[in-house]
């Protein structure tokens, strides 16, 4: 089983502050981390490898320092890592990113399953995984909490608004992973040090076979970020659920009177 995991290094949003005047994010001094759902996707992929054999390759598109995130992946079970990095990728939107990742995936080999985090904590679009599936003409299952393989089909447990559903799909398939029931493993001291010695394959745009330059970067992007802002935080809502509808109604009325609404 050949497995690919797509990951992204993102700013730690817990550490990010917003400029109160401009409304833009202050990224200086903010540590970079492996996108949390990508860490879940990697854990799911490594467990999948442990159950069914094969190898896990991780891939990331980003600046040179994204190598750190890839080394982190190696320390917790990935076998190989590839970084595609080039100034030409700057300002790529999800379409351009998924295009570059899918072309690189083809170049690296024939992957049976591609795991992605459902979305990243910086962009929150959740589009890259499904777009990769479209580029490669793979099946896709999104929002997956757990995945098994019965020898012929993938069986993915999928998070729904209310409850779960299990989806069956043939290989090859893209799986986007949401928060799993298990937490990603820690590296050991040994695996951490071994990861630091591992060679990471680095590819520039010109080293990706068949890549059309006008389909990456800003020119290859179909979306533009017009404005970033932090929405005003409203007060939390309240659910009134007394024993009877009459009691609930009375309580609601009392609250509205107190609030001088009625």
């Amino acid at each position: 089983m050949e497995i690919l995991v797509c990951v992204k290094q993102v700013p730690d949003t817990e550490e990010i502050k917003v400029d109160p005047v401009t409304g833009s994010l202050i990224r200086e001094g903010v540590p970079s981390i492996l996108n949390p759902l990508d860490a879940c996707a990697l854990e799911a992929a490594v467990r999948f490898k442990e159950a069914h054999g094969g190898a896990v390759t991780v891939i990331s598109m980003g600046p040179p320092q994204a190598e750190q995130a890839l080394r982190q992946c190696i320390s917790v079970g990935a076998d190989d890592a590839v970084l595609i990095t080039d100034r030409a990728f700057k300002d790529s939107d999800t379409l351009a990113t998924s295009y570059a990742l899918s072309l690189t995936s083809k170049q690296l080999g024939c992957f049976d399953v591609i795991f992605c985090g459902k979305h990243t904590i910086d962009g929150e679009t959740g589009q890259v995984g499904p777009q990769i599936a479209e580029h490669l003409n793979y099946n896709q299952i999104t929002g997956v909490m757990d995945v098994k393989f019965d020898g012929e089909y993938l069986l993915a447990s999928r998070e729904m608004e209310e409850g779960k559903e299990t989806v069956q799909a043939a290989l090859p398939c893209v799986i986007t992973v949401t928060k799993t029931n298990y937490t990603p493993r820690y590296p050991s001291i040994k695996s951490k040090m071994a990861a630091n010695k591992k060679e990471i394959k680095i590819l520039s745009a010109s080293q990706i076979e068949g890549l059309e330059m006008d389909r990456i970067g800003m020119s290859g992007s179909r979306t533009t970020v017009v404005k970033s802002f932090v929405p005003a935080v409203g007060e939390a809502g309240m659910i009134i659920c007394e024993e009877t509808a009459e009691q609930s109604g009375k309580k609601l009325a009392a609250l509205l009177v107190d609030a001088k609404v009625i």
Partner: protein
Amino acid sequence: MAMIMNQDQKDLVALAKEFMEKEVKPHIYELDEKGEFPLELYKKGFQLGFHCMDMEEKYGGVGLDYNTIAFVVEELAKVDAGFAISLTLNGLPFACVSQFGTEEQKKYVSEKIVPGGFITFALTEADAGSNAGAVRCTCTRDGDDYIINGPKTFITNGEYGDIHIVFATINPEAGVRGICAFIVEKDRKGIQIGKKENKMGLRLSNTCDMFFDNVRVPASNLLGKEGMGFKIAMSALDIGRVFNAAMAIGIAQGALDDCIEYSKQRKPFGAPIATHQAVQFMLADMAIQIEAARALTHNTAYLAQAGEKYTKEAAISKTFASDMAMHVTTDAVQVFGGYGYSKEYPVEKRMRDAKIFQIFEGTNQIQRMIISGALLR
């Protein structure tokens, strides 16, 4: 921290921080209150390899150098020194095996410990603490075996030890020259676990009395030769003191970090206490002492790593770092004021934890004897 670290060291410190913050920190208050030994958390730490950092790779250990270990144990102790002590204590007794054991003994002990386990250092007795040469636990030769008899006290991890390195005398009249060191497996008949100490600090660590009642071990479990036990113990204690110093630095650094955060928030007169020079100078003095202790300790670790003689420097590092940690944590309680005296805030625990570092593995008075002895030799 004004120290240059390589990438491995940075990563391992980050790993220690993440592990301690996520896995241990949420439980510290309760465990400290109860004085409970969180065995399951220690097992998680074993999986990462914190219990065999100084065991050579060829025996399955991690094989880190002493400076890297010092960085890691400092980070562990920054969150909880008791947990750090119990998790990494194996290094001290294993040093006895690695420095004086045969190839078979090194393999035997590593195979039992590397998958996850504790080794204890059973030297101290009620009347043989600072005067380690006064050991009264005896060993007698009986055919191909030795028979060990006698009590031990203040044994860290004693209740949970898989292997004990036990020091016993074959001839009480011979003083330090009569002491022998043995590998004693926990399932040997006659090992009794006694009273568990209800300690002031390091309450996540286990400390107990032990009694060896006609415990029979094969002669192949003797480390080195008969009468070498004192030398073995002292040699292991040298490197143990370097790591103790690093842990004391961790306690102090944790206290300083707490003070920096608190002093920016606490506003008794409408402005944060961090704006008061009296507080600023206390923080600066803490940092001065911590950085000095760290530089000193890492220099000793370099000496040890290079194979230089470092007994005096280990004693200097341990004394300076532990006195410093006591001073810094006491000042930290002062910075926190009344809240510093409350268990609601972490600094009183750091003060309790720091105290033992002036006492164990050779009191600071004994350390000064070692230092002056080396100076006047």
